[in-house]
C-alpha cells in the first residue's frame, strides 16, 4: 500500500507482523491454559454479583413485584430501565460485526467476535427484565401467539408484543451470526488441540468444517447476507423499544425522534461497554497486538459521533417541547432539568454529551486510562438516560394530585447488580472457552495474506497492485 494511512484512517490491522501460526497460538492460548488468578478474581466477583441478583430475584418471585420500588404513577422503573440499557449495550456488537462489515471497515476483525458475544449475553440479560416485570414469568409462554385453551391471541397492535418478536428475533439472528463465524475457528482449534475430549467437542461443534474453498464461497455469501439483514434488524430492535414509549400520549415519551435517537443511544452505550471490557481483556490476555490502540481510538471516535447524535436529540426534544406551545410538554422538560430528579438529568447530559467532547483530542483518544474513565461514564450516563426518560416522565404527568417520587428498594439495586453479574459471568466463561478474536478473519487481513495475482482457469496470472 503506497498511501499514507493517516488520510484514510486505515491502520495496520495486526501490529508487529505475525505469522499464521503465531496468530493461532495467541488466540487459542486462553482456551488451552488454566485460568489465571486474575480470571478467578474476576469470576468470583461476577458470580457473587450474579448470586445476589438471583437472591433478589427469588425474593421477587416469592413475594411478588411489590418488593420493588415501583409505585402508582411510576409503574415502570428499574425493570424497564435495565431492559433498555442492556438491549442497547447489545447493539454495538451487531453494529461492529454487521454494519462495519458492510462498510468494509477491516479494523472490525479484531473486535467483532468479542462484540458479537457481548451482544448475545447483553440480549440475554435484557430479556430477563421484561419477563420478570410481568410478575409471573413462568407464564411467559402467553407472550407468544400460541394456540391456547382460552381461545385468545396476543395483541398485535401492542408495542410490547413487538418487543417480544424483536428481541427474540434479534437474539436468534445474533446467535446464528456468531455461531456461523465460529465454525471455521472451531475447526482450527479441533486440529490444534491435543486433548481428545476437547477434540470431540470441537469436532462436533465445527460440524466437520474443512476450510474447502467451495465451502468458503457459500460461507462468505451467507455472511454477507446475514450482515445485510442484521443491519436493519439492529435498527429495528431499538426502534421498537422506543415505540414502547413513543406510541403513548405521555409527554416526554411521545416524540417522533425517539426511534433514531434510541438507536444512536444504543450504539453509543454499546460502544462504551465494548471499550470498557476490551481495555481489560486485551491487557489480561496479552492481545495488545491484535486489539490495538488504533481500535480503541476508532471506537472513541464513534463514541464521539454517536454522543453528538444523542446530544442533537436532547436539544431537539427540548426545543420542540418549547416550540410546541403545549404546556404539558414544556412542563415535562422543565421538570427534567430543574425538578426533583434534575441531578439524574444533568448526570445524563454531562456523561453523554459533555465529557465525550474530550475525545476531540487525539491525546485523549489514545490514552487508555482516560478512555477507561470516559467509557465508564458513558455507561453511567446511558443508564441514567433511560432513568430520566422513564421515571421523570411518569412521576409527574397530567394529574398533579397523583404525582409521586420513585425510590428504588434494595431488591431493585440487587437486581441491577445481578444483571451485571449475569452478563460478566457469561462473558468470562466465553473468554476462557472460545476464541475471542476470529482466527480466520484476522489471518485474512494480515499483510501478504491475499494473493497479488488473480488468474482465471487455464489463463495466465493477471497482476494487479
Amino acid at each position, binding site marked *: 500500500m503506497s498511501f499514507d494511512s493517516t488520510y484514510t484512517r486505515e491502520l495496520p490491522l495486526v501490529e508487529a507482523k505475525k505469522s*499464521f501460526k503465531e496468530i493461532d497460538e495467541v488466540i487459542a492460548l486462553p482456551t488451552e491454559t488454566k485460568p489465571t488468578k486474575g480470571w478467578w478474581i474476576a469470576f468470583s466477583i461476577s458470580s457473587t454479583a450474579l448470586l445476589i441478583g438471583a437472591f433478589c430475584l427469588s425474593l421477587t418471585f416469592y413475594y411478588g413485584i411489590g418488593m420493588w420500588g415501583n409505585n402508582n404513577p411510576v409503574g415502570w422503573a428499574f425493570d424497564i430501565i435495565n431492559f433498555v440499557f442492556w438491549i442497547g449495550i447489545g447493539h454495538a456488537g451487531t453494529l461492529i460485526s454487521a454494519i462495519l462489515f458492510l462498510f468494509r471497515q477491516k479494523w472490525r476483525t479484531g473486535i467483532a467476535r468479542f462484540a458479537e458475544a457481548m451482544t448475545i449475553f447483553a440480549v440475554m440479560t435484557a430479556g430477563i427484565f421484561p419477563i420478570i416485570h410481568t410478575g409471573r414469568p413462568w407464564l411467559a409462554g402467553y407472550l407468544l401467539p400460541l394456540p391456547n385453551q382460552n381461545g385468545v391471541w396476543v395483541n398485535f397492535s401492542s408495542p410490547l408484543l413487538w418487543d417480544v418478536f424483536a428481541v427474540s*428475533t434479534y437474539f436468534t439472528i445474533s446467535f446464528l451470526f456468531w455461531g*456461523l463465524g465460529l465454525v471455521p475457528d472451531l475447526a482450527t482449534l*479441533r486440529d490444534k488441540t491435543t486433548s481428545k475430549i476437547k477434540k470431540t467437542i470441537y469436532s462436533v461443534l465445527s460440524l466437520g468444517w*474443512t476450510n474447502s474453498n467451495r465451502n468458503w464461497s457459500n460461507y462468505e455469501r451467507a455472511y454477507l447476507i*446475514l450482515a445485510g439483514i442484521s443491519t436493519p434488524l439492529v435498527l429495528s430492535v431499538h426502534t421498537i423499544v422506543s415505540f414502547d414509549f413513543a406510541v403513548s400520549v405521555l409527554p416526554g415519551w411521545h416524540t417522533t425522534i425517539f426511534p433514531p435517537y434510541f438507536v444512536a443511544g444504543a450504539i453509543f452505550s454499546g460502544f462504551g461497554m465494548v471499550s470498557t471490557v476490551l481495555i481489560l481483556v486485551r491487557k489480561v490476555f496479552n492481545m495488545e497486538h491484535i486489539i490495538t490502540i488504533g481500535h480503541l481510538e476508532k471506537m472513541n471516535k464513534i463514541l464521539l459521533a454517536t454522543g453528538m447524535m444523542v446530544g442533537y436529540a436532547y436539544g431537539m426534544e427540548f426545543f420542540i417541547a418549547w416550540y410546541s406551545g403545549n404546556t404539558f410538554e414544556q412542563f415535562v422538560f422543565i421538570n427534567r432539568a430543574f425538578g426533583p430528579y434534575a441531578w439524574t438529568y444533568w448526570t445524563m447530559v454531562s456523561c453523554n454529551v459533555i465529557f465525550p467532547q474530550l475525545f476531540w483530542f487525539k491525546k485523549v483518544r489514545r490514552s487508555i486510562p482516560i478512555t477507561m474513565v470516559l467509557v465508564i461514564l458513558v455507561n453511567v450516563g446511558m443508564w441514567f438516560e433511560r432513568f430520566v426518560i422513564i421515571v421523570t416522565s411518569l412521576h409527574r404527568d397530567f394529574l398533579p394530585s397523583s404525582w409521586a417520587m420513585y425510590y428504588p428498594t434494595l431488591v431493585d439495586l440487587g437486581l441491577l447488580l445481578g444483571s451485571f453479574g449475569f452478563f460478566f459471568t457469561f462473558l468470562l466463561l466465553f473468554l476462557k472457552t472460545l476464541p475471542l478474536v476470529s482466527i480466520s478473519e484476522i489471518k485474512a487481513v494480515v499483510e501478504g495474506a491475499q494473493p497479488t495475482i488473480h488468474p482465471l482457469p487455464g489463463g495466465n496470472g493477471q497482476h494487479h497492485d
Partner: protein
Amino acid sequence: MVSIMIKKLINSLKEYDSKADTEHRSKKLFGLAALYNTPNEIITAAADVAGKGYEKFDVYTPYPMHGMDDAMGMKSSKVGYVSFALGLTGMCLALLMIWWMSSVNYPNIIGGKPFFALPASIPITFEGTVLLTGIATVLGVLILFNQLPKINSPLNDTDFMKRVTSDKFGLVINADDEKFIDADVRKLFLSGGAFEVQEIYYRETNLGIKTPIFDGKFISIIFATAILTAIITYVTLNIVLYDVVPFDWMWNQAKINSQSKSDFFPNKAGMREPVNGTVARGFLPYEYKGMPDSSVKLLSNPLAVSRKVLERGQERFNIYCSPCHGYFGEGDGRMRDQFPKPPSLHNQKVLNWPDGNIFHVITNGQNVMPSYAEQVPVDDRWAIIHYIRALQRSKNASDEDLTKSK
C-alpha cells in the same frame, strides 16, 4: 460414595483423553493432496488444475481467499436465492398471521384502531422476514450448500487438514475424477511449487454401509433421555411445584377470605360485622319480616314505570327469578325436575295480588321459595314486580291493548 463416583468419572475421562486416535484407514484412495506455501502459488495452482479440466478438486485455505472462486472457475454462490425465498415466505406468513389472528379469529377493538392496521403490523412483519431469512441463510449454507455436518470426511484428522486449518494452503484432487492419473497429478502438483504431496485414504467407516445414526446404543440413549426429561418435567410441574408459592396460580394469597378464621380479631372471625345501628345501602330492613301474609300492611310500589325500570326489572328477574319461574313466569324454569316446580305467575291469585304482596313474598319467601332479601336490594325488588306485571299483561292482553299499541 459420591466422591468415589466423581473420582471414577474423572479417571475414565482422563483415560479417554489420553487415548490415541486409533481409527483405521482403508486402502481405498480418496485423493491426492498437495500443500503450498504462499497465496500466489495456490491460486496459480488452482487455476492450472481447473484449466486442465479436472472437476472434482477443491482448494483448502485457512481463510477465504480473494479471487479464488474465479481461479477455480466456480459460479457465484446461490445461497441468496434460498434466503430471498424464505424471507418472502416469512413476510407473508407474518402478515397472514397478524391479519387472521387479530381480525378474523379473535377480533378485538384496541385503542380505537382497526382490527387489522398496516402501520401496526409492519414491525412484526419485518421481524418475521428477518427471522426466516436468517435461519434460512445459516441452515442453507451449512446443510444445503456445504453438506455439513460431516464429521467423518476422509480429510478430517489428517496431517493435511492440520496444516490447512493453520498456516498452509492445500489442493486436493479426488481419485474419482475422470482425469485422475496418479503420476500426472503428482507432476502437476510439484511443478506448481507444492512442497508436499500426501495420499488421503478413505476411513473404514466411510466405506461401511452402517450409518452411525441408526446405532442401537445411540438410539436407546436418545430415547432414555427423552423419557427421563418427560418424567422430570411432569413431576416438577405437576407435583413438586403444584402448590408451592409462587407457582400456585395465586391460590394462596395474603388476604382473609370470607367465612374463614382469623387470629387477628378477638372473635376469631375473618369477616367484620356492620357497626351497630347502621344499615347498608339498599338493604333497609323490612318491617314485616317473617310475618304471615295476613298480618301484613301491604306496601305500594314506590317506583314509577319507565323503560329503565322495566329493563332493570327484566335483567334482575332473568338472573334471580327465571331459574325456577322461567323467563316468562310460567313456572317452567331451568331448574325444573331438580327442584319443585313453582306455580305460574299468571294464575288468578297472583294476578289479583297487589304489588305489596309480591314484594312480601320476594322478601320473606314462601313455601320452598327462600327469601331473596339478601341478593336483591329493595329497589330492584320493586323493579322486578313491575316487570312481572308487564309479563302478566302480555300474557293476558286484550284486543284493546293491541289497538293501543298501534
